[in-house]
């Protein structure tokens, strides 16, 4: 009896400790498994001297692969052929970043619920539905179709996949990344489709900006004049990426001149997910005529969400015909931003509007057919099965027209079931961007760079270029529809095919320039071209400040050194404040301020317009602005009717030029306010906010770095694995470090005969929070410092300075 009792207790205990439990919505990992120091989470605590395997047996290799790790744990992969090179890249990337690779794919393809459950109030399930309804998998599958048509790309993806899967299959529970143990699940096999999903994840981050539905509502609520006044396509805040006035010598494509038709209604959908307008990137290249070394210098800092494990993974790829180094996206082969011994390239986002919404006219409630040019077309129904952990699967039906999927209907997010809109996104089309990077990695000159870019459709990017032979260039590359004026700014009537995209701008007519007279090229997400460029251009927003600051500095610079470029990437000058603060301050009457307001006023008056870590003026300016914006645009918050807030630049312009505009009336108060009243009110609230912050934080003064509190969060928002840093800058500033996003990679390449290059990112090569390489670069990033990038020509180049060498062999 005692035996049976004791036996039952033991078995029950083991069972209970071997599975996870959800208590009050939180998943408790299997405690026995998780806490076991020989196999559980403790195994993620790497020892200080990192152990690098001397040799790994990998089936399927054709030759030998040597991997040299430098002091930052950056792998320098030396292979004897391309197949081995990409297999090794897959294996090594998975070794350091497996959990991140997979969670990005699960998130993009709408499968998070399968490992995390539906979430509180079904928030995760709804997120998954949103991804499915926007057709992210539809996009990835289309991309894979064109990848499969190109033997080079598909072979490369298969090798990369093979490498990732060799690694996954070599794992026991003991070796799993910490996050798998915490959330109690296991990695699935990798596939070429997952590489395609990763590309679409970037496309969603960068090219899913549009405000068509919002603009349609603004048009119906406020009229065409207000659209023109509040949302101009081209603002005077841009020094265009290419100013080639009168030099566009091609004959542009003409399309059907039938005017397009708009739906005549206010579109009732909940506020849509619009991308953060303050996200962006910088790149520039200066020619040898402007540098001290007489060689071109290329710089790039893409601004993205900054999280851990870092979005980028640095790697060098060496094989016959290729020797390149830079950063890669964990989950896809090649170097995405980097250089080789002949050229360097960098990328920023092109912003352009590549989305349209089409109103669908259905036959009846069954929604089985829709009207197109007076014929009835069949509506396709895709059934999405969403696995939900510990629950029954959720089934969602998504309707597809030839335009694309219908994301919002009576079953999801729409506030009215009368009308449905189809979603046309350029990234749904077949394309093979991976081939661009394959070719860029091997490019020897400007001509090769141009050929490589011809494969790049989406997400449209500004590709900066510089070569050892002395060329600099920039090209805005993507698949851009030829648009009639205002086309793409509003939702369109989907019953007429002439409202669709009829032609695309031929690639050779995209905005581009080589070796401009001014001696530099640059881009910072601003308006792309001068007004003589013969195509209509629109976007959710274009950048208005960083671009002018960069160009001002570069225009006036000569004898430029690498250090100058480092300084420029870390420049905290707030051009927006420089242009607007004197105007704002002129609305305050210093004799009517209380003590703390007067203190703020004086700090602002003597501020030098730099958002440095210790700046006090920046605190008050930004707090003022953050109070002002929502107060001015309170009219744009209407619950079930999506509207859009005008840009920062245009808001300041309106304050200056139209202070009596009706939008300056603050709806909450009975009085009628003007810009003057709002500025005063926002100032008072800002001072209150800062005073309250000082009290809460027990700080005698408020300094910008502390007040802004840049936060490098863990990808699954696990607070203990996240870090707060004191860092200057902000959106609209070259050092575009906001609270949770900013320069995700800073790179500077001097294209001398022996290339000198520097880089840093806010994290580290290892995705494991228990490794000292999880965030070892964060400190230098925070302080605006860099690491020299070790560009090797053979494995022994790094003798004495490396962490270790590993060889891959097939038995």
């Amino acid at each position, binding site marked *: 009896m*005692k035996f049976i009792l004791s036996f039952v207790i033991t078995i029950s205990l083991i069972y209970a400790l071997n599975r996870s439990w959800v208590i009050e919505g939180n998943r408790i990992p299997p405690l026995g498994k998780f806490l076991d120091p*020989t196999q559980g989470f403790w195994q993620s605590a790497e020892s200080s001297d990192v152990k690098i395997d001397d040799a790994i047996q990998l089936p399927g290799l054709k030759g030998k692969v040597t991997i040299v790790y430098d002091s930052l744990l950056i792998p320098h992969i030396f292979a004897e052929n391309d197949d081995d090179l990409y297999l090794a890249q897959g294996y090594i990337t998975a070794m350091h970043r497996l959990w991140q690779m997979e969670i990005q794919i699960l998130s993009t393809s709408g499968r998070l619920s399968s490992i995390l459950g539906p979430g509180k109030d079904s928030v995760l399930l709804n997120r998954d539905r949103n991804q499915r309804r926007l057709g992210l998998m539809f996009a990835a599958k289309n991309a894979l179709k064109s990848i499969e048509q190109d033997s080079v790309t598909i072979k490369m993806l298969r090798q990369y996949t093979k490498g990732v899967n060799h690694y996954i299959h070599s794992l026991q529970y003991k070796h799993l990344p910490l996050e798998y143990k915490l959330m109690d699940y296991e990695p699935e096999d990798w596939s070429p489709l997952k590489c395609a999903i990763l590309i679409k994840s970037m496309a969603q981050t960068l090219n899913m900006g549009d405000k068509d539905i919002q603009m349609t509502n603004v048009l119906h609520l406020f009229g065409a004049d207000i659209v023109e006044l509040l949302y101009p396509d081209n603002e005077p805040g841009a020094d265009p990426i290419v100013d080639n006035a009168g030099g566009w010598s091609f004959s542009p494509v003409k399309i059907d001149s039938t005017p397009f038709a708009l739906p005549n209604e206010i579109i009732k959908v909940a506020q849509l997910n619009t991308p953060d307008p303050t996200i962006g990137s910088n790149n520039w290249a200066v020619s040898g005529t402007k540098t001290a070394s007489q060689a071109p210098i290329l710089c790039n800092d893409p601004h993205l969400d900054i999280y851990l494990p870092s979005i980028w993974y640095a790697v060098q790829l060496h094989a016959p015909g290729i020797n390149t180094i830079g950063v890669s996206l964990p989950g896809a082969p090649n170097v995405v931003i980097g250089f080789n011994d002949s050229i360097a390239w960098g990328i920023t986002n092109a912003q352009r509007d590549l989305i349209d919404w089409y109103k669908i006219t259905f036959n009846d409630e069954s929604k089985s057919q829709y009207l197109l040019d007076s014929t009835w077309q069949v509506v396709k129904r895709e059934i999405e099965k969403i696995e939900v952990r510990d629950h029954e699967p959720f089934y969602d039906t998504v309707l597809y027209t030839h335009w694309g999927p219908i994301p919002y209907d009576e079953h999801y997010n729409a506030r009215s079931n009368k009308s449905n809109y189809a979603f046309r996104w350029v990234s749904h089309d077949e394309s093979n961007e991976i081939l661009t990077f394959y070719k860029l990695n091997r490019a020897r000159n400007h001509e090769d760079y141009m050929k490589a870019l011809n494969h790049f459709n989406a997400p449209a990017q500004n590709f900066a270029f510089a070569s050892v032979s002395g060329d600099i260039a920039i090209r805005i590359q993507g698949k851009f529809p030829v648009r009639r004026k205002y086309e793409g700014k509003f939702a369109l009537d989907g019953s007429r095919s002439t409202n669709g995209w009829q032609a695309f701008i031929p690639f050779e007519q995209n905005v581009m320039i080589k070796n401009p007279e001014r001696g530099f090229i640059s881009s910072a997400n601003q308006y792309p071209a001068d007004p003589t460029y013969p195509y209509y251009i629109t976007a959710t927003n274009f950048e208005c400040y960083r671009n002018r600051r960069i160009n001002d500095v570069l225009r006036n610079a000569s004898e430029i050194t690498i250090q100058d470029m480092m300084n420029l990437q870390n420049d905290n000058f707030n051009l927006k404040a420089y242009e607007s603060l004197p105007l704002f301050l002129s609305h305050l009457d210093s004799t009517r301020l209380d003590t703390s307001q007067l203190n703020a006023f004086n700090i602002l008056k003597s501020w030098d317009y730099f958002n440095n870590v210790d700046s006090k003026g920046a605190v008050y300016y930004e707090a003022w602005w953050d109070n002002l914006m929502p107060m001015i645009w309170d009219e744009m918050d209407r619950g079930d009717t999506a509207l859009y807030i005008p840009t920062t630049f245009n808001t300041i312009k309106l304050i200056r030029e139209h202070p009596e505009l009706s939008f300056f009336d603050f709806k909450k108060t009975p009085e009628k306010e003007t810009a003057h009243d709002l500025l005063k009110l926002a100032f008072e609230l800002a001072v209150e906010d800062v005073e309250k912050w000082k009290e809460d934080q027990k700080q005698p003064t408020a300094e910008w770095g502390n007040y802004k509190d840049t936060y490098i969060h863990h990808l699954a928002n696990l607070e203990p694995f996240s870090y707060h840093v004191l860092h200057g800058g902000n959106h609209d500033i070259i050092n575009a470090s906001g609270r949770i996003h900013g320069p995700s990679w800073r790179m500077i390449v001097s294209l001398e005969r022996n290339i000198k290059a520097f880089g840093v990112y806010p994290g580290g090569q290892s995705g494991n929070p228990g490794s*000292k390489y999880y965030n070892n670069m964060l400190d230098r990033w925070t302080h605006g410092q860099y690491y020299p990038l070790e560009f090797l020509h053979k494995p022994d180049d790094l003798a004495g300075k490396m962490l270790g060498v590993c060889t891959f062999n097939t038995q």
Partner: protein
Amino acid sequence: MKFIFQILVIALLAYLFELVFPWWSIALAAAIGGYWLRSGKSFLAGFLAISILWAFIAWRIDANNPTHLTDQVATLFHINKSSLTGLTALIGGLTGGFAAMTGAYLRKKKRRHY
């Protein structure tokens, strides 16, 4: 003496088993130790053997790790690092204790049959 010997054998077996098998193989090790070396205090022997083994390995791993991983994981559980090590020892200890006791009772039961 037998008690100490029992602790050592269980700890050694558990260590060896875990090189190959999952964490619950500690129960097997403790049950074997309980069965062959029944000391009369088998639960305590199993408990001490595994809790000391696990606490020692955990401590050694943590001492060699330059990051704050253990503190961070402890924070996830809303406890501190020593409590996390304590919890580790407790979980292993309980499993080891009950398994050792089960092993001991098994032997007692069998004897009656002969």
